[in-house]
């Protein structure tokens, strides 16, 4: 089975549409949405509505910290993110807000675990940025492969049977075999706000038969996404950073 995985869409309609089209072309049979549907971008309502449709058709979805902040004003965030969330609250309809409020923090799917951040304490939204957090997250759940987002930069961690950790930055388009002999944690890049210096939207495809994970990059209409953010009067940096991929 071909599984398409998306994280950190952040209301960027142009980026998400481009990734969904690419995933369909790659033959995606299942969709996994790893949280942060809203915040930063100009089309939160469309994004959540699209996610709801996908979930109706069998997609998996988990909660991100920005999604949680819609109903929960105690979530800690930087100033720009806060402004964006305040605006987003006034954009989402009842159904969309209800959909976000009932999302689980974690979901298991066969030998896979889906979560937005570190799985050991998901409501604390800890960034998995090194083997330290990766090993803590892997120790929590016995799933062979954990998928998360939150960091906005692609990375693959593995743990050997003797609990030795490895870290690796995947190359776009090069399939990485997730060997059975060890456990894996894949941090996805961001669909809607990449921060690894490459402005192209990021998602991943998992081939469950071959057990291979491929990170994909999709160029999309950044100008339109930027113009939409500016038009809504959101902080300028949220628009400008999309050009830079930072």
């Amino acid at each position, binding site marked *: 089975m071909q599984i398409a995985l998306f994280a950190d869409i952040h209301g960027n309609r142009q980026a998400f549409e481009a990734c969904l089209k690419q995933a369909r072309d790659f033959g995606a049979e299942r969709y996994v949405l790893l949280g942060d549907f809203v915040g930063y971008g100009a089309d939160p309502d469309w994004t959540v509505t699209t996610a709801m449709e996908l979930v109706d058709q069998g997609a998996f979805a988990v909660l991100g910290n920005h999604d949680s902040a819609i109903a929960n004003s105690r979530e800690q965030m930087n100033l720009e993110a806060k402004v964006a969330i305040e605006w987003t609250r006034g954009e989402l309809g009842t159904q969309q807000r209800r959909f976000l409020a009932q999302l689980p923090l974690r979901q298991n799917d066969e030998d896979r675990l889906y979560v937005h951040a570190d799985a050991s304490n998901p409501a604390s939204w800890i960034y998995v940025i090194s083997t330290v957090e990766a090993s803590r997250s892997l120790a929590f759940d016995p799933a062979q492969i954990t998928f998360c987002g939150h960091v906005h930069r692609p990375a693959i961690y593995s743990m050997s*049977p003797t609990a030795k950790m*490895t870290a*690796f930055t995947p*190359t776009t388009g090069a399939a*990485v*075999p997730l*060997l059975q*002999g060890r456990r894996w944690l894949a941090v996805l890049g961001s669909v809607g706000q990449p921060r690894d210096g490459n402005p192209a939207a990021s998602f991943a495809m998992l081939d469950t038969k071959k057990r291979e994970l491929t990170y994909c990059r999709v160029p999309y209409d950044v100008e339109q996404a930027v113009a939409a953010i500016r038009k809504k009067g959101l902080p300028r940096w949220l628009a400008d950073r999309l050009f830079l991929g930072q």
Partner: protein
Amino acid sequence: MAKPLHEPGVVLDGFRLDEIAHQGGFSAVWRVSRPGVSTPMLMKVPRIGEGTDPAAIVSFEMEQMIMPRLTGQHVAKCIVVGDFAVQPYIVLECIPGKTLYERLPELPLPYAEVAAIGVKIAQALDDIHRQHVVHLDIKPSNIMFRPSGEAVLLDFGLSHHDQLPDLMQEEFRVPFGTAPYMSPEQLRGIRSDPRSDLFALGVLLYFFSTGVRPFGERETIRAMRKRLWRDPVPPRRLRPDYPPWLQEIVLRCLDIEPGWRYPTAAQLAFDLSHHDQVKLTTRSERMRRDPITTVLRRRFNKDLMRPHQPALAAHLSSSPIIAVAIDLTEGSRAINDALRVTTERILATLPSARLACVNVLKQGRITIDFTLDEFGHNKQIERLVALKHWAAPIELDERQLTVHAIEAIDPATAILDFARANSIDHIVIGARQNSLLRKLLGSVSAKVAAEAQCTVTVVRPPPTSQDEAAPATDDVSLSSAG
């Protein structure tokens, strides 16, 4: 002793274990067969169990990841990878024959034979480097030859793949390899430099041509670390008749600084197969090792030379071999000037590139060609001189430039063969402007552009006022006149 996991006759995933071919420290290798498959096959099964060296498992995992991604004549074809947590295995094509290790009793070998072996291994290295892999364990027992002559590299358990997680590096952080062949940078823990394989090949060439290992056989870290500052005894000191070109090549491979070695395996193969054109530096004349002051400087000022580490793919693409086909007949001045302009543009951003200037003299199918022309001049040498003269304004280092005069009945085929045999990355060729000649002889550049396996640039001279009046006669265009 651990209980053997498998016995002859056992069938594993459809493969029948016939007999043990090799029992290594990390794994057992079985000859296997399968109904309906006639190719001889080997199955590699790692030793897993109590007391197994963790490196054995990790190195097997690296092979599991790398082997299915490698293709071509220079590796054993990977038939299937069984990835099971309990019992992983790899089934590979069985290469008939013996490894280079079997030839150790014959050392030293004749110089020409060492060079010929070196060319084949360097071509194999070039192939795997282009597939994003650094082997990191090049030694005689990991090299075989197909009946057709190509070198086959074995055992990728210690290798590094540019696009896959490096489990060896991450888990152990100590150098793995074979002591006599390990490069200085490998000892420092760097696993991503393709020039480490050129160092190992240099060790092999030194050993095969002198019968002596340049850095000995000792395996302690202390003994191995000596090569970080101590250069080997020059081969000429061991064998007075050692050819200077071979010493130049071998010592360049063995340079402590990766940046001072050949930039790519293809460039090394090129020098080994055109040794009459190797630039002879002081390396070729050396009779003794570096003075103690140099050794002490290396020993205690290690940071003077910071190793620069470009990504594997970027490194290879910055060091191409470019072949330019030059017509030396009368009236080709305009096209030759245009060829030079284009060649200069291509070389401008590529300081490690090298340029091979090729001239093909067309021979008649029946007539006998004489080496000397009617005035008694050696035509071959005249052509080489003319090629050097053409290249002089580009001001290349002697090491970057070679000239080749070839005789052939079919010039296009000769250029294509030259490109294939020398791993040429880019051919620059002029389009023949004279439409009458083209009609009579066919278009050389069109055939080269259509059939070459590398990039081809077809160059035309700038139009003259005369040309503007008449429609352009164009060598490679697909118009009805072409």
